[in-house]
């Protein structure tokens, strides 16, 4: 740490003040005190350490970008729920695309994704109660649970060589269930979905909906297909309908009064147990996908958030919005505790439950 010799500057510049140099010659008083030697050690070490640290930081520290953790919501934007059921107060149970089944036990405030053994699109879910339910979907997949969905297991069901998509399933009393789908699939189970058998022979028409009215089974399908069986599925009669559009939903208030909906706003009404069907189609409604009994009247849903409400005799229909929040399609409608819920894209389901279901938990119904 030699001192530099800047003192010469004034000797060169201002010869008049040349006496400055001699003042620097001073006696050295190096008292060897411990604190002083400590300071010397520090003065020697610290700079070396700092330089080494800077060099290291400059050459080797390359921060790499890290993102924030993004939690995956139970219901994602791309989810589509084709089927749902409300088996108990506050319980919402829905099945949809990519093998996804979600369940809420608090009216939709919180959701749980239930593990399933399939990634096929699931088309419908029907529950007998809060624990036992059955799900059907693409590739003829049938799942069932006994424990509220903690475990879903694949159940073997009759398959076609050609196409096997199952579209709807209904849960009936005493553990009975009926499922319909492509290639004339009409499957029946009487043991809470454990085993299944075909009720009609395979044929190249898809069935879209099934319903039980009194003792009569009704099945609706492609290209105006509408059939009934009074003996539990042994003998089938084709109903004459005045339309050729595909029929997608069927519902009966009692053994006599029923309604069927279909594509392009098709609405058919019967008041004689299906002997005759009257065309009350509402073309402006677009494709309709499901219908249900709503008190004395009727309620149907379809594409673009359409909600069709009909008077008891089905002669007058009003087009409303199902959710009013988007123009999403809805493939199924279910009533529970006085509230209607529509199966549709995940966002629609979230919107319906987030806003409308909240007061219910407060009301204690």
């Amino acid at each position, binding site marked *: *740490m*030699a*001192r*530099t*010799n*800047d003192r*010469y*500057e004034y000797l*060169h*510049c*201002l010869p008049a003040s040349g006496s*400055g140099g001699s*003042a*620097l010659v*001073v006696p*050295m*008083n190096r*008292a060897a*005190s411990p604190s*002083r030697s400590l*300071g010397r050690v*520090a*003065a*020697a070490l*610290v*700079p*070396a350490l*700092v*330089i080494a640290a*800077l*060099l290291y*930081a*400059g*050459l080797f*520290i*390359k*921060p*790499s*970008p*890290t*993102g*924030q953790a*993004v939690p*995956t*919501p139970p219901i*994602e*934007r*791309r989810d*589509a729920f*084709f089927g749902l059921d409300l088996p108990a107060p506050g319980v919402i149970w829905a099945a949809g695309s990519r093998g996804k089944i979600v369940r809420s036990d608090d009216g939709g405030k919180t959701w749980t994704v239930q593990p399933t053994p399939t990634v096929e*699109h699931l*088309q419908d879910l029907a529950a007998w109660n809060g624990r036992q339910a059955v799900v059907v979907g693409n590739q003829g997949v049938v799942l069932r649970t006994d424990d509220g969905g903690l475990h879903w297991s694949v159940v073997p069901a009759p398959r076609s060589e050609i196409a096997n998509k199952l*579209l709807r399933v209904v849960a009936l009393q005493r553990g009975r269930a009926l499922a319909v789908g492509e290639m004339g699939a009409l499957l029946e189970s009487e043991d809470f979905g454990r085993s299944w058998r075909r009720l009609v022979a395979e044929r190249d028409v898809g069935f879209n909906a099934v319903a039980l009215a009194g003792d009569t089974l009704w099945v609706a399908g492609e290209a105006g297909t509408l059939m009934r069986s009074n003996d539990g599925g042994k003998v089938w009669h084709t109903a004459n309908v005045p339309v050729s559009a*595909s029929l997608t939903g069927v519902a009966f208030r009692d053994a006599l009064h029923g309604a069927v909906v279909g*594509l392009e706003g098709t609405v058919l009404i019967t008041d004689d147990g299906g002997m005759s069907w009257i065309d009350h189609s509402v073309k402006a409604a677009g*494709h309709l*996908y499901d219908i249900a009994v709503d008190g004395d009247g009727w309620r149907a849903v379809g*594409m673009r958030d359409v909600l069709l409400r009909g008077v008891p005799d089905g002669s007058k229909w009003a087009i409303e919005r199902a959710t009013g929040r988007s*123009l999403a399609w809805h*493939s199924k409608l279910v009533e529970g505790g006085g509230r209607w819920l529509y199966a549709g894209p995940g966002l629609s389901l979230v919107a319906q439950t987030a806003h409308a279901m909240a007061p219910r938990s407060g009301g204690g119904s």
Partner: protein
Amino acid sequence: MRDETFRRLGAFVALCIRQRVRVLFILGLLTAVFAVLASGVPVRTEFSDLLPADHPYVQVNDRYKGGFGSSNMVSIMLEVEDGDIFRPEVLKTLHVLTRDLQKVDGVDPFQIVSLASKKLKEVRTSTEGIEIRPLMWPDVPADEAGIAALKLAVLNNPMAYGPYVSADLKAALVTVDFYDHLLDYHAVFEQICALVRQAEGPGIALSVVGEPMLYGWVDHYLPETLHIFLMTLGALVALLFLITRSWRGTLLPLTAGAVSAVWALGCARLIGYHFDPLVIVVAFLITARAISHSVQLVTRFDDEIARHPDRVDAAVAARTAMLALFKPGMLGVVADAGCMIVVILTPIPLLQKVAVIGTVWVATIAVSAVVLTPVLLSYVRRADAVAHPVDVSPMLARGLDRCVRLAAAPRVRRAVLASSAVVFAASLGYAFSIKVGDANPGSPILWGDSEYNRDAARINDRFPGADRMFVVAATGRQDGLKNPLVLQNMAGLQRFMEAQPDVGGTISLADIVPTVKRTLREGSPRYEEFGATPEENGELLYLFTSGADPGDLERYADNGFADGAVTLFFRDHQGETIRTAVARVKEYAAAHPLPGGGEYLLAGGLVGVLAAVNEVILAGQIESIALALLVLVVCCTVTYRSTVAGMFFMVPVVISNTLTFSYMAWKGIGMNINTLPIAALGIGLGVDYAFYIVDGIREELHKHRDLDRAIAQSLRSAGKGVLITALTLTASVILWAASSLRFQAEMGLLMALWLGISACCALFVMPAMVRMFRPRFIVGDISDPVSQQVPAMA
């Protein structure tokens, strides 16, 4: 040896003053030549300069941007006040706008997409079979029925409804892409603004965003920027004139600044660089350095004159000033230049150019201030005359006396050091929260309520997001994308990415295939799924493209269906948003490799290249700061032959940097391509003042052995120069706050802060440290008269 060096320096100084006519002639000639060169420097923003060309993201962007959309995409939103866009006059406006956009310079006519373009198609099933046709091309529907049909078709079309028509049907989007190499920001901005004005009408509002528009706005404000620059200069002149009370104190610093600028810009022209308007802040900062050095010399000159009032000799005083300040001045220049050149390690062309020009610019100060100012000073005739009656020097003297007293009183200086330590520790902690990338939604270059940022907010409100990133699903084999497993994988990526709230939406081939299949199955949502086999997907895609231009799918996949794009729409491009998105894409790609080989390639589009820029800056920021500090330490160590000197001068630098970084973190100014050069330059900036003060103390100690007196003298001489520059520059730089460019306003404040803190460090902290620690490279073996003990150097 040292004596020899010093004698040579003395001889050089004497030569400069003796041969002053020749020196002036040579410098004048060089300045004239550089001035001619500098006048031809183009002022513009060059797009390719902003991107790190070697970064894999940028390479992916360059390779695929032709089809998948470049980072220069402009989005124009047409919005109606009442009702929806499905009205004849609105559709007509959209149609005309879409058509006229083809005439904009550099536009890629095949990448103009809107409801009125040929690109948005409808697939419909009818009794004759499948029909595919553009939604609203070539003409707007003529009657109500046609418009109602169009509305229905849009609602059923996920390619249109959502991405190009807003969910509430009140807005339509037009996106335009450009050929990068033909892009002229200025022309594009003017032409698109003209089209927008033409399209705007009662009840129809338009919003425009996109990088070309952003740089167009910067360009638009160039005259204002120049005005502010001139006003700053005017304020500077006025303040210097007020404080120094002499023409030399006013004009010489300005001359130094101007000569440096001319030389640097001349060099820029020689190397073939252009001048980016956003870099003007850096230019001003360096000019401030030149002015500051020159003010030191003039102040010193005045002191020398005042010291010998009986024997006024301008030449001798100039020589003395030059000789005395040569070392701290050159040390300041070299340290600044060294810190600036470190920026060259950041592999972004713009930053490298700024580093080169900045280094040259700083280096010219060695001539313009260190040599030219004293040479000109030697011509001063009536050195003791004052130019106006207002005298602020007593105020300055009082302020400096206070600094002297601070350093002299042991308790006070301990308090000063303790509080600096506290400030340092606190700001260090806060400085780490500084963000890389943009810290706010919208563009940080413009104010939040600027037209551009308001437009951006409106568009992001109605649509999934105006900022795009594409990820390439590269299967590497013909028809690889038709594999249902590949499509499912892509859809999975989209699903995964959409969980991030900043991602407004995603789109890819995996959205098109199910739509076609659904259309074939009577529009049933239950059939919105992929085909079971590659062949079925191929048929679905064939249906979609048949009867259409082969290039119509090019936004989603290449012609052979080997590589496809997953396009993500972002609501903002904040650094955090981009980092999270990129990390998530990587996470997904690692967990779900594309079936059958192939990989996901990151990342193109604006957000993709911003990700690359941010990664480069993030990786380089520690490097630049550490290496700049290292340069500083080495400079000081070599100059003073003492490693302690290196540590000593790091103190003001580190304090001013942590404080300014804290300010940036507090104000939400992110570390990005525009702020990085200023931050790097600021590292050298903090130390210049300290050099002058400390060197003044050393020099005084050669004359006597009284440390307190030496500190007092140094503060009154060098400290006065520090105070003058800090006051004048800070006061003038504040004018930048009035800029319409938020970036410049913030940088102006940042510079003012930097200059202020550096001055405070030099005036308060450095003397206190010298007095307290008595480093040997300054005080030598002079013992402490009070305690007879030298505390350990921390």
